């Protein structure tokens, strides 16, 4: 019987062998002929991960980190590898439409070509990241998630100083200076982030990892043989005191203006407030672009760092400098007096003075204490008309040289970008202004800090340093120390600038005069218990073109000071725009800052004063209305004045 069916055994054997041959042929093509599968396998299992170094952290003078790092994710795309993906699903996750999806792919190809990685969606919000990570296998190998660090500002303060980081733009990438960057990298755009980019950025590394099907890294590929390590950015240690910074931002809430406090012994900036400010965390993370355009468009210009960018007439705070020039030139002695009866009339027009009583400018100390306008405009004339110069043009140039050495009229070179030069008119400027026909009367206002002299708050604070130090200053700067520093970035801040060679005894009348201002003059609201404060109030006039007409606006409230009188530790300038007298707002603000710095606390007696200051609102109601930001107040955003007070006073 079995013999009968013998050939059928052969047929069955052939069927088996035939099938096996088909399988083996296919295997041969898959495994031996076709090479793409090992590449695909590597694409599956090997993760080329750019390791972004952690950016340097910024610490304040007491070692508290005021700018550190948080982790976030970017979705990056390699356009050529995008094939057969569920576009609709991805659009749904990213909440974009297909048109936008195509647009992004196209722009990625235009920017970087289709074989290179471009950022498709940056800094994904957590919930978007979660959904994407789950379904990432569907979008690979065209799309990948890349971790990157974002900056976080634990104190929500010092937005304008620290600056923010942003994605490097295609225009930047064209320039050789940015050759170290790739598309999608972030770099410091403003503030310290920008100035110290080279030390903060560190060095990128590349790591090859083996991953599993859910993109979970399983360990190094080939034992890390191909990896290069990332080198972390260096940390910065600032002279800034974040307590002062926060206090300053609190005090300046609902006001426009700025505070600059400098340690005169080093030039280190202790605090620099520009108001209105903003919460720096707005410019990190997912909603950076939206927040940026809101800040940019805001009527109160929160991105504008008034402390170094805004120019103000220094007003009376200029007077001690005029005095110093006179003393240094030797045109006066401290005992020089001027008979002022309420106005200066020698130049054909009356320049009013707030005091009328005889002898209020009987000597330098009195003139400063009483802020006699006549005394200082006259002093300016004496300085430029001095016989030894041989003519007002040379004399004025000499005056300009002095003013310039005090740091006015040019950029000081602080270590954040965007500084404005201010203004101090020189002889050439005068010639141009008056077509060569001018004398010491033409711009005599500069002697009292009005007219053709404009200073930034930082320049004013720096001028205070010169008086506090009796003749020298260090360039104002934020960074005290860079960890493991091997750069030359900080050398210029160690250099002492000696600007006047007046004997200490000649300084004393100026200093005593400023002491008198606080003890019994216009600056009494700046008194600090147990300290001798030397200050000078200013009430800077300012005009603006409103509806096509030059209109006089409410004066700026200006106050400059240093303390203590002997061995000063802090010099400060405070400007509150359109607030009126310097004594009302600027002086108490400066005083609170100095007290906090010198005593580390604020005496409880000052609570009512501080409450008034916190609640005082100088913002024009129209501006306030137009300004859409509720977080304009930086560190004190969304806090009531009582809540702020609780931070400083225990009840």
């Amino acid at each position, binding site marked *: 019987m079995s013999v009968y*069916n013998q050939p*059928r*055994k052969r047929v069955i054997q052939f069927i*088996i062998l035939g099938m096996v041959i088909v399988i083996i042929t*296919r295997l041969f093509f898959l*495994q031996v002929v076709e090479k*793409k599968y090992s590449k695909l396998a590597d694409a599956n299992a090997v993760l080329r991960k750019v390791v972004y170094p952690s950016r340097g952290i910024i610490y304040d003078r007491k070692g508290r980190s005021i700018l550190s790092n948080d982790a976030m994710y970017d979705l990056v795309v390699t356009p050529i590898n995008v094939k057969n993906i569920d576009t609709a699903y991805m659009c749904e996750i990213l909440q974009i439409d297909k048109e936008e999806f195509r647009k992004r792919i196209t722009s990625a190809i235009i920017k970087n070509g289709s074989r290179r990685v471009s950022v498709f969606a940056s800094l994904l919000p957590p919930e978007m990241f979660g959904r994407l990570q789950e379904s990432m296998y*569907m979008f690979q190998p065209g799309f990948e998630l890349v971790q990157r660090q974002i900056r976080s500002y634990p104190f929500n303060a010092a937005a304008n100083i620290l600056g923010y980081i942003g994605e490097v733009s295609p225009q930047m990438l064209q320039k050789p200076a940015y050759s170290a960057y790739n598309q999608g990298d972030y770099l410091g755009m403003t503030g310290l982030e920008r100035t110290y980019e080279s030390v903060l950025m560190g060095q990128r590394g590349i790591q090859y990892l083996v991953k*599993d099907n859910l993109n979970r890294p399983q360990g190094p590929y080939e034992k890390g043989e191909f990896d290069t390590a990332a080198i972390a950015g260096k940390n910065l240690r600032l002279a800034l005191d974040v307590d002062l910074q926060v206090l300053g931002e609190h005090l300046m809430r609902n006001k426009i203006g700025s505070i600059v406090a400098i340690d005169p012994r080093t030039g280190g900036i202790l605090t620099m407030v520009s108001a209105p400010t903003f919460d720096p965390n707005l410019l990190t993370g997912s909603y950076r672009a939206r927040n940026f355009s809101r800040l940019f468009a805001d009527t109160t210009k929160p991105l504008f760092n008034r402390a170094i960018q805004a120019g103000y007439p220094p007003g009376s705070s200029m007077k001690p400098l005029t005095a110093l020039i006179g003393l240094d030139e030797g045109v006066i002695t401290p005992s020089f007096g001027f008979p002022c009866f309420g106005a200066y009339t020698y130049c054909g027009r009356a320049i009013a003075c707030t005091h009328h009583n005889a002898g209020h400018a009987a000597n330098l100390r009195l003139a400063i204490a009483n802020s006699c306008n006549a005394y200082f405009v006259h002093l300016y004339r004496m300085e430029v008309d001095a016989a030894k110069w041989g003519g007002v043009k040379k004399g004025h140039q000499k005056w300009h040289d002095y003013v310039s050495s005090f740091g006015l009229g040019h950029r000081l070179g602080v270590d954040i970008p965007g500084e404005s030069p201010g203004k101090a008119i020189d002889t050439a400027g005068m010639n141009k202004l008056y077509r060569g026909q001018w004398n010491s009367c033409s711009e005599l206002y500069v002697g009292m800090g009005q007219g053709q002299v404009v200073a930034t708050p930082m320049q004013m604070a720096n001028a205070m340093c010169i008086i506090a130090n009796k003749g020298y200053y260090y360039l104002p700067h934020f960074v005290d120390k860079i960890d493991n520093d091997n750069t030359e970035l900080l050398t210029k801040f160690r250099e002492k600038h000696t600007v006047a060679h007046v004997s200490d005894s000649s300084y004393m009348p100026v200093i005593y005069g400023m002491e008198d201002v606080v003890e019994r003059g216009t600056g009494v609201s700046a008194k600090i218990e147990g300290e001798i404060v030397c200050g000078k109030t200013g009430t800077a006039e300012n005009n603006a073109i409103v509806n096509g007409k030059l209109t006089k606006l409410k004066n700026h409230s200006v106050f400059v000071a240093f303390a203590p009188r002997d061995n000063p530790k802090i010099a400060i300038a405070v400007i509150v725009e359109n607030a009126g007298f310097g004594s009302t707002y600027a002086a108490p603000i400066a005083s609170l800052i100095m007290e906090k710095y010198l005593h580390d606390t604020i005496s409880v007696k000052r609570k009512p004063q501080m409450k008034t200051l916190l609640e005082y609102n100088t913002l024009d109601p129209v501006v306030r209305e137009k300004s859409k930001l509720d977080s304009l107040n930086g560190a004190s955003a969304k806090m009531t004045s009582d809540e702020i007070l609780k931070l400083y006073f225990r009840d």
Partner: protein
Amino acid sequence: MNRRQQIKLTEGIDWPTMGLYLGIVFVGLLSIFAAEYREGDNIWNDILHLTKNYSRQLMWLGVSAVLATIIWLTDSKFFTATANLLYAGGLLLLLLVLGIGKDVKGSHSWLVLGGFQFQPAELTKLCTNLALAKYLSSIETDFTKLRSRLIASALVLIPCAIIILQSETGLALVYFSFFLVMYREGLPGVLLVIAFSGIVLVLSALLVDKNILFIIFSVITVLVIYFSRREIKRNRSRLALILGIWAFCSVFVMFVVPFAFTKVLKDYQVRRIEVMLGKENDPKATYNTRQSMIAIGSGGFIGKGYLKGTQTRYDFVPEQSTDFIFCTIGEDFGFLGSLIFIGLYVALLLRIIFVAERQRSTFSRVYAYGVASIVFFHMAINIAMTIGLAPVIGIPLPLVSYGGSSLMTFTMLIFIMLRLDADRQMVLR
């Protein structure tokens, strides 16, 4: 006496089959281990506590060894005597599953016994094989008669139908491999040709536009009629036959296949077939096949080395210790390893056919052919599926894939055959 018994214990065993069986099982264990082991795993602990598939597979191997020993010690008459009973029992079990079975991954084909899941559809292959052998070997059966052929087909198709109801289509298809046995026993060869043509028809219906196919059929028909016009003159019924085939093919392609694909087959089944044909590009649907092909393809000629494969070890391949176990072999051992591995199967299959042909009883021969057919079908479809030649239907690789039901069933299938073979000198009906 004692000595004689010892001799008797291993007497008559077909060592080549035994050796190939052990070899394939060993490769299976190695592969399951490779698919699961991660650096730092405590192997002994995993084995003792049955926490991993390979440790459980080791246990199932122990159980299988016990079953094999019991079968070896059983008189071979037992299997012929109880074949129909076992078949009936198997059918009851299948119906029972239909009632109280448990859903696992979309198929309603599992029984839960104690802590273990058990798939009766695996075991009924054995029962069906025994029953078919019993029927074909019975004196009353004349396999040249249509009636006998229909009864034999029914024996095979009844369990197949129940299993389809359990949504375990892959295992149900395995029952069609019994037609190979029936072919060996006298089913007309033209049936194989028709079956093959049917597959070709279905594939072409799916790949080519149906109107174009209709035109092609018509052109071929006209040509055939033209070239065989003399024969048609002699024999008019030839024309009717040709036109009949033409009409059948056209209706089949234009109506039956589209109907089947839209109304009869489930959505996922259609998709799997389309994936195999390269018509489906949805990454979700092609994921399994694509990852499996990447794993195997990346193995290259000599492979990445044991435990060095990145695709199988990091879970890129789905079901990698069960249905896609071949990926581990393809990736770790490459083309060379795959060749040797497939060689083991071919050797086993040819040996079983050799063993079958040397049987003196029809029962043993049919049974052995049944074993060969089932192993062949499983092996060919499973491997073809992992390399994109067949749609993804979940059937295990015999003796290699993880799974107790499968391992025990194939062990019993082979050891019953070995028992029958050892007793081939006894004349059985």
